[in-house]
Protein backbone atom coordinates (compact mmCIF):
# COMPACT_ATOMS: atom_id res chain seq x y z
CA UNK A 1 0.00 0.00 0.00
CA UNK A 2 2.72 2.42 1.06
CA UNK A 3 4.72 1.51 -2.02
CA UNK A 4 1.78 2.30 -4.22
CA UNK A 5 1.29 5.63 -2.50
CA UNK A 6 4.89 6.60 -3.00
CA UNK A 7 4.59 5.63 -6.66
CA UNK A 8 1.55 7.86 -6.96
CA UNK A 9 3.34 10.65 -5.14
CA UNK A 10 6.18 10.40 -7.60
CA UNK A 11 3.90 10.43 -10.60
CA UNK A 12 2.10 13.46 -9.25
CA UNK A 13 5.43 15.15 -8.71
CA UNK A 14 6.37 14.51 -12.33
CA UNK A 15 3.09 16.12 -13.23
CA UNK A 16 4.03 19.10 -11.09
CA UNK A 17 7.51 19.30 -12.57
CA UNK A 18 6.27 19.68 -16.08
CA UNK A 19 3.70 22.29 -15.20
CA UNK A 20 4.13 25.48 -17.04
CA UNK A 21 4.56 28.69 -15.21
CA UNK A 22 2.73 31.51 -16.80
CA UNK A 23 2.53 35.06 -15.67
CA UNK A 24 1.16 38.25 -17.08
CA UNK A 25 2.60 41.45 -15.78
CA UNK A 26 2.69 45.14 -16.48
CA UNK A 27 5.91 46.63 -17.72
CA UNK A 28 6.08 50.40 -17.23
CA UNK A 29 8.03 52.61 -19.62
CA UNK A 30 11.79 52.66 -19.29
CA UNK A 31 11.79 49.59 -17.16
CA UNK A 32 13.25 46.16 -17.15
CA UNK A 33 11.83 43.14 -15.43
CA UNK A 34 13.83 40.00 -14.90
CA UNK A 35 12.77 36.51 -13.91
CA UNK A 36 14.94 33.65 -12.83
CA UNK A 37 14.50 29.93 -12.92
CA UNK A 38 16.64 27.11 -11.73
CA UNK A 39 17.01 24.46 -14.42
CA UNK A 40 18.71 21.09 -14.11
CA UNK A 41 21.26 19.98 -16.66
CA UNK A 42 19.86 18.33 -19.76
CA UNK A 43 16.36 19.55 -19.24
CA UNK A 44 14.47 21.09 -22.04
CA UNK A 45 12.79 24.40 -21.53
CA UNK A 46 10.49 26.49 -23.65
CA UNK A 47 9.86 30.14 -23.13
CA UNK A 48 7.07 31.89 -24.93
CA UNK A 49 6.11 35.49 -24.62
CA UNK A 50 3.66 37.93 -26.09
CA UNK A 51 2.92 41.59 -25.62
CA UNK A 52 -0.79 42.01 -25.01
CA UNK A 53 -1.17 45.78 -24.91
CA UNK A 54 0.78 48.96 -25.24
CA UNK A 55 2.47 50.98 -27.95
CA UNK A 56 3.49 48.92 -30.92
CA UNK A 57 3.04 45.72 -28.93
CA UNK A 58 6.76 45.09 -28.78
CA UNK A 59 9.32 44.34 -26.13
CA UNK A 60 13.01 43.42 -25.86
CA UNK A 61 13.82 40.03 -24.47
CA UNK A 62 17.09 38.54 -23.38
CA UNK A 63 17.77 35.10 -22.03
CA UNK A 64 21.03 34.32 -20.31
CA UNK A 65 22.42 31.10 -18.92
CA UNK A 66 24.20 30.39 -15.62
CA UNK A 67 27.59 31.82 -16.63
CA UNK A 68 25.97 34.79 -18.31
CA UNK A 69 26.23 33.51 -21.87
CA UNK A 70 23.45 34.93 -23.98
CA UNK A 71 21.13 32.27 -25.32
CA UNK A 72 18.55 34.52 -26.89
CA UNK A 73 18.40 38.20 -27.50
CA UNK A 74 16.03 40.09 -29.65
CA UNK A 75 14.63 43.56 -29.76
CA UNK A 76 11.14 44.85 -30.38
CA UNK A 77 9.43 41.50 -30.66
CA UNK A 78 5.68 41.22 -30.48
CA UNK A 79 5.73 37.56 -29.63
CA UNK A 80 8.17 34.73 -29.82
CA UNK A 81 8.94 31.30 -28.57
CA UNK A 82 12.32 29.83 -27.75
CA UNK A 83 13.28 26.30 -26.81
CA UNK A 84 16.63 25.31 -25.41
CA UNK A 85 18.26 22.46 -23.55
CA UNK A 86 20.09 23.40 -20.41
CA UNK A 87 23.79 22.70 -20.96
CA UNK A 88 24.45 23.06 -17.29
CA UNK A 89 22.56 23.25 -14.05
CA UNK A 90 21.96 26.70 -12.77
CA UNK A 91 19.93 29.85 -12.81
CA UNK A 92 18.62 30.97 -16.15
CA UNK A 93 17.63 34.58 -16.36
CA UNK A 94 15.22 36.14 -18.77
CA UNK A 95 14.59 39.83 -18.89
CA UNK A 96 11.89 41.82 -20.58
CA UNK A 97 12.86 45.36 -21.24
CA UNK A 98 10.80 48.34 -22.23
CA UNK A 99 13.77 50.67 -22.04
CA UNK A 100 13.37 51.90 -25.59
CA UNK A 101 9.90 53.18 -24.86
CA UNK A 102 9.47 56.53 -23.22
CA UNK A 103 5.80 56.64 -22.46
CA UNK A 104 3.91 53.47 -23.21
CA UNK A 105 3.09 50.88 -20.60
CA UNK A 106 3.05 47.34 -21.78
CA UNK A 107 1.39 44.21 -20.59
CA UNK A 108 3.50 41.17 -21.23
CA UNK A 109 2.57 37.54 -20.94
CA UNK A 110 5.09 34.76 -20.72
CA UNK A 111 4.91 31.06 -20.28
CA UNK A 112 7.84 28.96 -19.21
CA UNK A 113 7.77 25.23 -19.51
CA UNK A 114 10.55 23.23 -17.99
CA UNK A 115 10.95 19.52 -18.29
CA UNK A 116 9.24 16.92 -20.35
CA UNK A 117 6.44 17.99 -22.55
CA UNK A 118 4.60 14.72 -22.26
CA UNK A 119 4.83 13.63 -18.67
CA UNK A 120 1.65 11.61 -18.69
CA UNK A 121 2.89 9.41 -21.52
CA UNK A 122 6.44 9.19 -20.23
CA UNK A 123 5.11 7.85 -17.04
CA UNK A 124 3.90 4.73 -18.82
CA UNK A 125 7.39 3.30 -18.79
CA UNK A 126 7.95 3.21 -15.07
CA UNK A 127 4.60 1.70 -14.26
CA UNK A 128 4.85 -1.69 -12.57
CA UNK A 129 1.93 -3.43 -14.21
CA UNK A 130 0.74 -3.05 -17.77
CA UNK A 131 -1.80 -0.31 -18.23
CA UNK A 132 -5.35 -1.26 -18.88
CA UNK A 133 -7.05 0.14 -21.92
CA UNK A 134 -8.99 2.43 -19.63
CA UNK A 135 -5.84 3.87 -18.14
CA UNK A 136 -4.24 4.40 -21.52
CA UNK A 137 -7.33 6.27 -22.63
CA UNK A 138 -7.27 8.52 -19.61
CA UNK A 139 -3.64 9.32 -20.33
CA UNK A 140 -4.52 10.13 -23.92
CA UNK A 141 -7.45 12.26 -22.92
CA UNK A 142 -5.29 14.06 -20.41
CA UNK A 143 -2.70 14.86 -23.05
CA UNK A 144 -5.29 16.00 -25.53
CA UNK A 145 -7.07 18.18 -23.04
CA UNK A 146 -3.79 19.71 -22.09
CA UNK A 147 -3.17 20.72 -25.65
CA UNK A 148 -6.73 22.06 -25.84
CA UNK A 149 -5.96 24.26 -22.85
CA UNK A 150 -2.73 25.34 -24.50
CA UNK A 151 -4.48 26.31 -27.70
CA UNK A 152 -7.15 28.07 -25.70
CA UNK A 153 -4.52 30.17 -23.97
CA UNK A 154 -2.98 31.06 -27.30
CA UNK A 155 -6.31 31.95 -28.75
CA UNK A 156 -7.19 34.02 -25.70
CA UNK A 157 -4.00 36.01 -25.98
CA UNK A 158 -4.38 36.66 -29.68
CA UNK A 159 -7.97 37.62 -29.11
CA UNK A 160 -6.95 39.98 -26.31
CA UNK A 161 -4.42 41.62 -28.57
CA UNK A 162 -6.95 41.98 -31.37
CA UNK A 163 -9.59 43.35 -29.08
CA UNK A 164 -7.32 45.93 -27.50
CA UNK A 165 -6.32 47.01 -30.97
CA UNK A 166 -9.96 47.28 -32.07
CA UNK A 167 -10.85 49.33 -29.02
CA UNK A 168 -7.92 51.59 -29.76
CA UNK A 169 -9.06 51.95 -33.35
CA UNK A 170 -12.56 52.81 -32.21
CA UNK A 171 -11.22 55.62 -30.04
CA UNK A 172 -8.96 56.91 -32.74
CA UNK A 173 -11.79 57.01 -35.26
CA UNK A 174 -13.80 59.07 -32.81
CA UNK A 175 -11.09 61.58 -32.02
CA UNK A 176 -9.92 61.91 -35.58
CA UNK A 177 -13.46 62.53 -36.79
CA UNK A 178 -14.02 65.25 -34.20
CA UNK A 179 -10.68 66.76 -35.16
CA UNK A 180 -11.43 66.66 -38.84
CA UNK A 181 -14.86 68.24 -38.43
CA UNK A 182 -13.36 71.12 -36.47
CA UNK A 183 -10.67 71.46 -39.12
CA UNK A 184 -13.24 71.74 -41.92
CA UNK A 185 -15.16 74.45 -40.09
CA UNK A 186 -11.99 76.38 -39.27
CA UNK A 187 -10.72 76.19 -42.85
CA UNK A 188 -14.12 77.28 -44.11
CA UNK A 189 -14.09 80.40 -41.95
CA UNK A 190 -10.40 80.97 -42.69
CA UNK A 191 -10.95 80.91 -46.44
CA UNK A 192 -13.67 83.53 -46.20
CA UNK A 193 -11.53 85.80 -44.05
CA UNK A 194 -8.58 85.54 -46.44
CA UNK A 195 -10.77 86.19 -49.49
CA UNK A 196 -12.35 89.18 -47.77
CA UNK A 197 -8.98 90.63 -46.94
CA UNK A 198 -7.88 90.34 -50.61
CA UNK A 199 -10.88 92.23 -51.85
CA UNK A 200 -10.82 94.88 -49.16
CA UNK A 201 -7.18 95.69 -49.99
CA UNK A 202 -7.50 95.83 -53.81
CA UNK A 203 -10.57 98.01 -53.52
CA UNK A 204 -9.00 100.41 -51.08
CA UNK A 205 -5.77 100.98 -53.03
CA UNK A 206 -7.32 102.59 -56.13
CA UNK A 207 -9.74 104.54 -53.97
CA UNK A 208 -6.84 106.16 -52.14
CA UNK A 209 -5.19 107.47 -55.29
Amino acid at each position, binding site marked *: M*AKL*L*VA*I*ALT*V*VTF*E*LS*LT*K*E*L*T*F*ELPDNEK*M*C*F*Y*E*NIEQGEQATLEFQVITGGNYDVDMELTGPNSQVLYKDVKKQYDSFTWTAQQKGVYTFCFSNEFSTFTHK*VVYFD*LQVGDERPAAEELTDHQTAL*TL*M*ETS*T*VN*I*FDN*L*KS*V*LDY*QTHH*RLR*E*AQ*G*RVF*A*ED*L*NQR*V*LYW*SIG*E*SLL*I*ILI*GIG*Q*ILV*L*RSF*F*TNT*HKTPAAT
Partner: protein
Amino acid sequence: MACTSAVFVWFIFLQTSLALYFHIGETEKKCFIEEIPDETMVVGNYKVQAYDHNVKEYLPVSPGIGMHVQVTDPEDKIILSRMYAAEGRFTFTSHTAGEHVICLNSNSSSWFASGQLRVHLDINVGEHAVDYQQVQAKDKLTELQLRVRQLLDQVEQITKEQNYQRYREERFRQTSESTNQRVLWWSIAQTLILLITGFWQMQHLKSFFEAKKLV
Protein backbone atom coordinates in the same frame (compact mmCIF):
# COMPACT_ATOMS: atom_id res chain seq x y z
CA MET B 1 0.10 6.37 6.16
CA ALA B 2 0.74 9.58 8.09
CA CYS B 3 4.40 9.25 7.21
CA THR B 4 3.68 8.96 3.50
CA SER B 5 1.46 12.01 3.56
CA ALA B 6 4.26 13.87 5.27
CA VAL B 7 6.44 12.84 2.36
CA PHE B 8 3.81 14.18 -0.02
CA VAL B 9 3.77 17.49 1.76
CA TRP B 10 7.52 17.63 1.67
CA PHE B 11 7.50 16.93 -2.05
CA ILE B 12 5.07 19.75 -2.67
CA PHE B 13 7.10 22.01 -0.47
CA LEU B 14 10.23 21.17 -2.39
CA GLN B 15 8.38 21.88 -5.58
CA THR B 16 7.26 25.34 -4.56
CA SER B 17 10.72 26.24 -3.35
CA LEU B 18 12.02 25.60 -6.87
CA ALA B 19 9.58 28.00 -8.44
CA LEU B 20 10.31 30.88 -10.67
CA TYR B 21 11.56 33.95 -8.88
CA PHE B 22 12.21 37.63 -9.37
CA HIS B 23 13.65 40.53 -7.42
CA ILE B 24 11.93 43.56 -6.02
CA GLY B 25 13.01 46.46 -3.87
CA GLU B 26 11.86 46.35 -0.27
CA THR B 27 9.17 48.94 -0.72
CA GLU B 28 8.32 48.08 -4.27
CA LYS B 29 5.00 46.67 -5.32
CA LYS B 30 4.66 44.13 -8.07
CA CYS B 31 1.44 43.29 -9.82
CA PHE B 32 0.48 40.36 -11.98
CA ILE B 33 -2.57 40.00 -14.12
CA GLU B 34 -4.60 36.84 -14.44
CA GLU B 35 -7.34 36.85 -17.01
CA ILE B 36 -9.69 34.15 -15.85
CA PRO B 37 -13.28 32.99 -16.28
CA ASP B 38 -15.73 33.22 -13.40
CA GLU B 39 -15.85 30.70 -10.57
CA THR B 40 -12.24 29.76 -11.07
CA MET B 41 -9.93 28.99 -8.23
CA VAL B 42 -6.52 30.61 -8.16
CA VAL B 43 -3.78 29.47 -5.83
CA GLY B 44 -0.54 31.33 -5.41
CA ASN B 45 2.48 29.96 -3.63
CA TYR B 46 5.26 32.30 -2.72
CA LYS B 47 8.38 32.62 -0.66
CA VAL B 48 10.36 35.73 0.16
CA GLN B 49 14.08 35.93 0.77
CA ALA B 50 16.10 39.01 1.56
CA TYR B 51 19.58 39.89 0.42
CA ASP B 52 22.09 39.71 3.20
CA HIS B 53 25.05 42.04 2.63
CA ASN B 54 27.30 40.08 4.97
CA VAL B 55 26.84 36.68 3.43
CA LYS B 56 26.19 38.09 -0.07
CA GLU B 57 23.35 35.72 -0.54
CA TYR B 58 19.62 35.57 -0.32
CA LEU B 59 18.52 34.21 3.02
CA PRO B 60 15.15 33.63 4.64
CA VAL B 61 13.85 36.90 6.02
CA SER B 62 13.49 37.75 9.68
CA PRO B 63 10.10 36.85 11.20
CA GLY B 64 8.72 40.39 11.15
CA ILE B 65 8.73 40.62 7.38
CA GLY B 66 5.68 39.49 5.53
CA MET B 67 3.92 39.86 2.25
CA HIS B 68 0.87 41.92 1.63
CA VAL B 69 -1.29 40.36 -1.03
CA GLN B 70 -4.05 42.29 -2.69
CA VAL B 71 -6.35 40.98 -5.36
CA THR B 72 -8.73 43.18 -7.31
CA ASP B 73 -11.41 41.95 -9.65
CA PRO B 74 -12.29 43.42 -13.09
CA GLU B 75 -14.54 46.04 -11.47
CA ASP B 76 -11.67 47.23 -9.27
CA LYS B 77 -13.24 45.77 -6.17
CA ILE B 78 -10.82 44.34 -3.67
CA ILE B 79 -11.58 40.68 -3.14
CA LEU B 80 -8.53 39.82 -1.11
CA SER B 81 -6.28 42.07 0.93
CA ARG B 82 -4.29 40.35 3.58
CA MET B 83 -1.00 40.23 5.28
CA TYR B 84 0.78 36.93 4.97
CA ALA B 85 3.98 35.54 6.39
CA ALA B 86 7.21 35.48 4.43
CA GLU B 87 6.27 32.17 2.94
CA GLY B 88 2.85 30.92 2.23
CA ARG B 89 -0.05 30.42 -0.01
CA PHE B 90 -3.01 32.57 -0.93
CA THR B 91 -6.23 31.39 -2.50
CA PHE B 92 -9.17 33.12 -4.06
CA THR B 93 -12.04 32.28 -6.33
CA SER B 94 -13.17 34.64 -9.03
CA HIS B 95 -16.81 35.73 -9.17
CA THR B 96 -16.74 37.77 -12.32
CA ALA B 97 -14.81 36.90 -15.41
CA GLY B 98 -12.00 39.18 -16.47
CA GLU B 99 -8.68 40.58 -15.46
CA HIS B 100 -7.77 39.96 -11.88
CA VAL B 101 -4.80 41.90 -10.62
CA ILE B 102 -2.66 40.32 -7.95
CA CYS B 103 -0.31 42.73 -6.20
CA LEU B 104 2.47 41.79 -3.83
CA ASN B 105 4.44 44.08 -1.61
CA SER B 106 6.40 43.56 1.55
CA ASN B 107 5.75 45.29 4.84
CA SER B 108 9.42 46.06 5.15
CA SER B 109 10.62 48.16 8.03
CA SER B 110 12.71 51.21 7.23
CA TRP B 111 15.97 49.97 8.73
CA PHE B 112 15.95 47.23 6.21
CA ALA B 113 14.81 49.33 3.32
CA SER B 114 17.88 49.41 1.10
CA GLY B 115 17.76 45.70 0.51
CA GLN B 116 16.54 43.61 -2.33
CA LEU B 117 13.93 40.94 -1.93
CA ARG B 118 13.79 37.75 -3.87
CA VAL B 119 10.26 36.54 -4.39
CA HIS B 120 9.52 33.01 -5.51
CA LEU B 121 6.10 32.92 -7.03
CA ASP B 122 3.95 30.31 -8.62
CA ILE B 123 0.37 31.08 -9.56
CA ASN B 124 -1.90 28.22 -10.55
CA VAL B 125 -5.27 28.66 -12.12
CA GLY B 126 -8.25 26.35 -12.37
CA GLU B 127 -7.57 22.65 -12.29
CA HIS B 128 -3.84 23.30 -11.89
CA ALA B 129 -4.68 24.76 -8.51
CA VAL B 130 -6.31 21.59 -7.25
CA ASP B 131 -4.17 19.53 -4.97
CA TYR B 132 -4.85 16.01 -6.19
CA GLN B 133 -2.87 14.28 -3.49
CA GLN B 134 -5.23 15.79 -0.97
CA VAL B 135 -8.25 14.84 -3.00
CA GLN B 136 -7.03 11.30 -3.23
CA ALA B 137 -6.26 11.02 0.45
CA LYS B 138 -9.61 12.48 1.41
CA ASP B 139 -11.91 10.63 -0.95
CA LYS B 140 -9.90 7.37 -1.04
CA LEU B 141 -9.75 7.19 -4.80
CA THR B 142 -7.85 4.72 -6.89
CA GLU B 143 -5.39 6.04 -9.40
CA LEU B 144 -7.83 5.61 -12.22
CA GLN B 145 -10.57 7.41 -10.34
CA LEU B 146 -8.17 10.20 -9.58
CA ARG B 147 -7.26 10.51 -13.22
CA VAL B 148 -10.89 10.63 -14.25
CA ARG B 149 -11.46 13.26 -11.60
CA GLN B 150 -8.62 15.29 -13.02
CA LEU B 151 -10.01 14.92 -16.51
CA LEU B 152 -13.40 16.11 -15.33
CA ASP B 153 -11.85 19.17 -13.75
CA GLN B 154 -9.94 19.86 -16.93
CA VAL B 155 -13.06 19.63 -19.05
CA GLU B 156 -14.89 21.90 -16.67
CA GLN B 157 -12.11 24.43 -16.89
CA ILE B 158 -12.20 24.27 -20.66
CA THR B 159 -15.95 24.82 -20.66
CA LYS B 160 -15.64 27.85 -18.41
CA GLU B 161 -12.89 29.23 -20.54
CA GLN B 162 -14.98 28.62 -23.64
CA ASN B 163 -17.92 30.51 -22.15
CA TYR B 164 -15.68 33.36 -21.21
CA GLN B 165 -14.23 33.30 -24.71
CA ARG B 166 -17.71 33.70 -26.13
CA TYR B 167 -18.38 36.63 -23.88
CA ARG B 168 -15.16 38.27 -24.92
CA GLU B 169 -15.81 37.59 -28.54
CA GLU B 170 -19.15 39.33 -28.14
CA ARG B 171 -17.43 42.38 -26.71
CA PHE B 172 -14.92 42.35 -29.53
CA ARG B 173 -17.71 42.20 -32.07
CA GLN B 174 -19.55 45.06 -30.37
CA THR B 175 -16.44 47.20 -30.51
CA SER B 176 -15.94 46.43 -34.18
CA GLU B 177 -19.56 47.14 -34.98
CA SER B 178 -19.37 50.38 -33.05
CA THR B 179 -16.29 51.38 -35.04
CA ASN B 180 -18.09 50.53 -38.22
CA GLN B 181 -21.10 52.64 -37.20
CA ARG B 182 -18.92 55.52 -36.15
CA VAL B 183 -17.05 55.54 -39.42
CA LEU B 184 -20.32 55.52 -41.32
CA TRP B 185 -22.04 58.25 -39.32
CA TRP B 186 -19.00 60.43 -39.14
CA SER B 187 -18.49 60.35 -42.87
CA ILE B 188 -22.13 61.32 -43.40
CA ALA B 189 -21.82 64.06 -40.78
CA GLN B 190 -18.61 65.30 -42.34
CA THR B 191 -20.09 65.42 -45.80
CA LEU B 192 -22.95 67.48 -44.41
CA ILE B 193 -20.55 69.80 -42.61
CA LEU B 194 -18.60 70.20 -45.83
CA LEU B 195 -21.75 71.04 -47.81
CA ILE B 196 -23.02 73.46 -45.17
CA THR B 197 -19.64 75.17 -44.95
CA GLY B 198 -19.44 75.49 -48.73
CA PHE B 199 -22.97 76.86 -48.95
CA TRP B 200 -22.33 79.35 -46.16
CA GLN B 201 -19.10 80.46 -47.88
CA MET B 202 -20.95 81.16 -51.11
CA GLN B 203 -23.72 83.03 -49.36
CA HIS B 204 -21.32 85.06 -47.30
CA LEU B 205 -19.12 85.97 -50.25
CA LYS B 206 -22.11 86.86 -52.35
CA SER B 207 -23.48 89.27 -49.76
CA PHE B 208 -19.97 90.63 -49.20
CA PHE B 209 -19.41 91.39 -52.86
CA GLU B 210 -22.83 92.98 -53.09
CA ALA B 211 -22.09 95.15 -50.09
CA LYS B 212 -18.76 96.22 -51.65
CA LYS B 213 -20.51 96.84 -54.97
CA LEU B 214 -18.17 94.49 -56.80
CA VAL B 215 -20.99 92.78 -58.69
